[in-house]
Structures are given as C-alpha cells and as structure tokens.
C-alpha cells in the first residue's frame, strides 16, 4: 500500500515510516497540516495516517477539506486526545478509524491495513472465505470443510471481524472495539478466553489450525 503519514513529531514519524516500510508498504511523510493536504491532493494514496494536532493546519480541518473535495482516501486519525467523545468526533469528521496515543506499532499497522483500500471493509460482501472456512453473512452460517460450525452470536461477530481481516493481525483492542464496542482495555485476558472458545469450534477437529496467536500483537486468521 502507498501510505501518507502526516505527523509533526519527527522521531515518531520516522518510526512509523520505518515500521510500515518493513511491513512492505510505501510511505510518504508530511510534517504539517498544509503540506499534508497538498500531498494528499497530489497523489492517490491507499491509506493516510493523520495526527490531530499539527502545526499550520490541524488534522480535523485537513480531513474536512479532503472530504469536501470528494477525496475518499481511508484515514486513520492519530491523537493524544484519547477519550471516547473525541474518538466519536474524529470518526464523524470523516475518519475511518481512530487511534489514541500512546499506541503500539502493531496496533497502528493492524488498523491501517484494516482500513486500506485493498481490503475495503465497507464493500457489500455477503460471503467471506479463508482457506476451507466459509462464512455466509446473510444466512449467518459458518462452515469448515463443508461441515456446519455452530456459533453463538458474539462468536459469529468475532469470527467475522477476523475473517474480514484474514491474513492480517487483529489486535485485542480492535476486537474489543469492533465486537464488543468497548473503548477501554480490560486488565485481564478476557479476549483470549473467547478466542480459545472460538478456536475450539473452528480448529479443534481439523489438522490445519487457522486461528493463530501473534505474540505481542493479537490474532491472525490465516491458512
């Protein structure tokens, strides 16, 4: 993916750039709001990471200007202002996801990849597939290797989230936000418990596990 990072903290920007490049992405850096807007207009990016507090022009106004121009580049808003109301404000202002500082790089990477153009999460798909695991979003059914897998509603949503991001890391925080709509981190391994139950249903009777734990990051559904 080609990603534009608009961030005024040089060291943070450099780390983000380095990390994204190592993950195989092409990265451009913009140190302030005005330059960021200019660069976003000049090139077609697959995703954009936008800090809220920027010199010259703040992130939210850059975003508003872009959306007014009809630019639908997926934007991940990055901010030190992490309260829920500000997240809501950021998302209503046209952001596709919101990440509060401090964040872990894996979290940032997982989220940018999730909103990136190559995997449009808003696309009207009715069926999801990962290896021999199939999910029918309309009939609310899951089959693995042709066999029906019975899931609770929450387990279904958990698996849906993982399947939509198949092949990519999904962090625990992302799961809490997208499956439970919780914007705080529990101190315990409560997500792991649910993942292990899900694993018991989709992986237990099969040779090849699909649901992998990524150390220090989260989970990945992959053949």
């Amino acid at each position, binding site marked *: 993916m080609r990603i534009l990072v608009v961030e005024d*903290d040089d*060291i*943070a920007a450099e*780390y983000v750039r*380095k*990390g994204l490049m*190592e993950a195989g992405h092409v990265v451009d850096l913009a140190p302030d709001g005005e330059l960021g807007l200019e660069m976003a207009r000049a090139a077609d990016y697959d995703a954009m990471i936008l800090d809220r507090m920027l010199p010259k022009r703040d992130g939210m106004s850059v975003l508003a200007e872009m959306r007014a121009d009809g630019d639908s580049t997926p934007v991940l808003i990055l901010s*030190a202002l*992490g*309260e*829920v*109301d500000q997240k809501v404000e950021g998302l209503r202002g046209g952001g596709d996801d919101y990440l509060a*500082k*401090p*964040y*872990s*790089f*894996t979290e940032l990477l997982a989220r940018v990849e999730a909103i990136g153009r190559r995997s449009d999460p808003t696309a009207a798909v009715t069926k999801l597939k990962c290896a021999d695991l199939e999910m029918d979003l309309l009939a609310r059914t899951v089959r693995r290797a042709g066999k029906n897998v019975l899931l609770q509603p*929450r387990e279904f949503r958990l698996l849906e989230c993982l399947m939509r991001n198949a092949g990519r890391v999904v962090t625990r925080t992302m799961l809490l936000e997208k499956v*439970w709509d*919780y*914007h*705080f*981190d*529990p*101190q*315990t*391994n*409560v997500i792991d*418990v*649910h993942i292990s*139950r899900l694993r018991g249903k989709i992986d237990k009777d099969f040779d090849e596990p699909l649901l992998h734990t990524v*150390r*220090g990051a989260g989970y990945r559904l992959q053949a």
Partner: protein
Amino acid sequence: MRAALIKLYRNTLFRLSLLGAVFFVVALIIALGNVYFLTISREIAQVDKSLAAEVEEFQEILETRGLIPLGNEVFLRSGSGDRHYLLTARNQDGKDMVTGNLGEQIVTLKRQEKTVLGEEGTEGFTKVDFILVVPATDTNPASDRRMRGLSGYLQIDGKNVAAVVASRDVEVTMRTAERVKNAIFSSSAIALVLGLISSWFVSRKFTQRVEAFNRLATDVRAGHLDRRAPRNYSEDEMDLLAEHLNDMLDHIDRLMKAMRYAGDSIAHDLRSPLTRLRTRLETAASEIKDPLAQETLFAASDDADQLLKTFDSVLRIARLEAGERREMLSEIDPKPILDDIAELYEPACEDVGLSFSSDIRAGHLISADRGLISQAVSNLVENAIKYTPKGGAIHVSLLRNKEGRTEISIVDDGPGIPEGSRQRVKERFVRLDVSRSEPGSGLGLALVDAIADLHRATFALEEGRKSGDGLRPGLSARLTFPRIRKQKQPSVQLAQAAE
C-alpha cells in the same frame, strides 16, 4: 434521657463551665460562712464571755460577802431582760435555799460541754444549751426559748456551797443564725442550678460551633476539599480557628491540585517517549533472531504496555474528575450493558474455576454513559475474578433497592477488604499489602470511584457473601444511582413539537 445526660457530661465545655459553677458555689459558701462567723458565732461567744464573767462575779460575792447577799444579787438580776438564773444552796441551818427565775419553768437540756473558767477556782462549770418553755400569758402564747447557760458549783475553800445556772435567752440570735444558714443553703443551691443552666447553655452554644468543625472534618475526609468552616467574623477564638482552618484547607487544596496537575502533566508528557520506547522494543523483538533475547524484548515491551495503561488510567481519572463528560450522560436502561459484561466475563470465570451468576432486571432507567458504566462494572468484575480463589462465586445484579434507586452490585465470596481500608482503596495508587503481589496499578477502584462521582452515584464497598467454609467474608461492590428527575410536563412540549 440518660444517654443525653452522658452526652452532655462528655462535652468538654459543659464540664469546664460546670467546674466553674462548682468553684463559684464553694466560694459563695465560704463567703457566707464568713458572714455567719463574724455575726452569729461572735455573738454567741460574747454571751459565753459575759456568762463566765458573771459566774466569776458570783464566786467573788460568795467569797467576800457570803451566801445570802449572793442570793439577793441573783434574785435582783433574775428576769431583767434576757437573763435567767437558778441558784440552789444549803443554808447554815440546813434549809434548802432556791432563788432565780428558772426553776418554775420546764427546761429541756439540749447539749452540755465541760469547760474551765478563769485562771483559777471555778473549775467544773458546764456550758449548757437548753430550751425554756415559757407558759402562755394573757398577751403571749406559750413559746419555746433557746437558752445558753453556764452551770456549776460555787465553792468556798474547795467545798461546793451553791449550784448555779446563769443563762441568757439567745432565741433571737439563734433565729437569725437559722435564717443566715438557710440563706447560705438556698443561695448556694440557686447558684448551683443557675451554674448548671448556664453551663448547659454555654456548652450548647459552643457545641453548635464545634459541631460545624466536626462536620467540616468529616466532609473533607470524605473528599470534599471545597468545604469551608462557617465564620461569623466576630474575630473571637472560634472565628479565628475557623479562619485558620480555612486557610489550612485552602493550602491543602492548592497543594493537592498542584500535585495532581503535576502528576497528570507527567503522565501526559511521558506518553510520547513511552510510545517510542514501546515501538523500538517491538521492532527490535520482531527483528532479532536469538529466541532468548526476543523473549526478553517482548517482556520489556509488555512492561511498557503496562506503563502506558497506567498512564492512560491516570489521565482518564483526571478527566473524569474534571467532570467534562457529565453533559454526555443520557437516560438509558443499563440492562444491555450488564448483559454484555456478563457475557464477556462468564467464560473467563469458568476458565479459572469460579461460578458466575447474574440477576439483571430490565426497566430501571438511569442517567449514564454506556462506555463508562461498562468500564466501571468491568473493573469491578475483574477485581472479583482476580481476588476470589478457585471454587468461589461471583454474582452480578441490577435491581431497584428499597429506596427506589437503581443499584448495580458485584458480590463475591473472596477475602474481602477490611472495614478500615474500604475508603482508602478507592484512592489512586492505593494497594493493600495483600494485593501487592498481584499484578495491577492500584487505579481500578479509583477509576470506578471517579466514574461513580461523575454519575452522582454512590460507590460502596461492603462485606459480600460469606464463603462456604465461612473463612472469607467476601466483598460487595455496589453502585447506587440517583433517581432520574422527571421532566416537567413533557406532554405539553410534545404537543407543541407536534404542531
């Protein structure tokens, strides 16, 4: 009544002013006693002195002039004013001689006391107090007169010659003495009663002011650092005390704010470098090939994560305490929130061998924020999971209590929290000794407390459900929400909106 008296007696000021009153009464008794001594006792002493002089005189008359002139002398003096005598002797020709004005009347002896008169001779005289009954006359009814006298023998050459009683009517003096005594007793009693009343009054007046200070201290202890002592600007001691207390509270408040502000700014400023530290560790961990070094780097990165979480919680609490989100509260039924939490944590409980039950009822509206209530309840449930040993039970309920207020409670049968520490654990970074070995930042309950505060709900920690073996008291964490005030005349507004 008894309890009220004991309470009154416990009052320092009451005791002090009572002591003052007692001192005053004692002083009064001494002063009046002095008056009594200077008047009545002196008069009686005067009587005694004149009686002694008279007896000396009789002795002299007997020695120099003989018995008959003495009889005449006694006879002459008898009956003049308050004087009464009795003289009995045996004549030289063996006849009894009786003279004086005491004999015919009935005499009751009250008291006698041996005494010595003069420097020589008249030994063996006795002081006597007696009552003389005066028979009724045409003009006066019968009356008892108190008498003071001296009785003994007059001697010639060491031989008893005549028995004599010389006395004075002291009725008037004695009556005065009685009146003075009564006056002393009654005025002391009045002074004592007045003293008691004034002590009560003074102590009540001061108690009211001291009570105000006590209430202030309780409030401040409960965390209301904005409370101040009432002042009346009279600049008396209590007013000055109030002023000094208020100055002190202002100072503490300023320091606390400065400290909190410093803490919050530190937390805020450290977020960026910590984020970078975490990213570096993470990047290094994914790049390095040596599995041992990788493990160490991942562990370090987890530690950094824990630090970031702590900072996040600190900032979250700071923002909640500032009350910024109060406007965002809306009327909701918390049932779905608790259902979600129950669904999220039930498997986690089962995994660690705890039984989980819930009683979540619908239809209790509260003014709340979904995210915050979720977080508070989640913190409490996680706490219960963390401290309840295997085989224990956790119960989550949403009910309406007796006062009609909505109540969320999380009850476990774990080790509980000692009563004395229940208030303290709600403070930031406070961890009890027993929990130090457990992971955690000591912010969980502080966050719950801040969330409860924002919702104007009360957060109470109490004894929970006793464990099966009766060894653990358990813990009950309860959030009680205020009733929602009904909007006035919503139908009218709706009707207007419809038009």
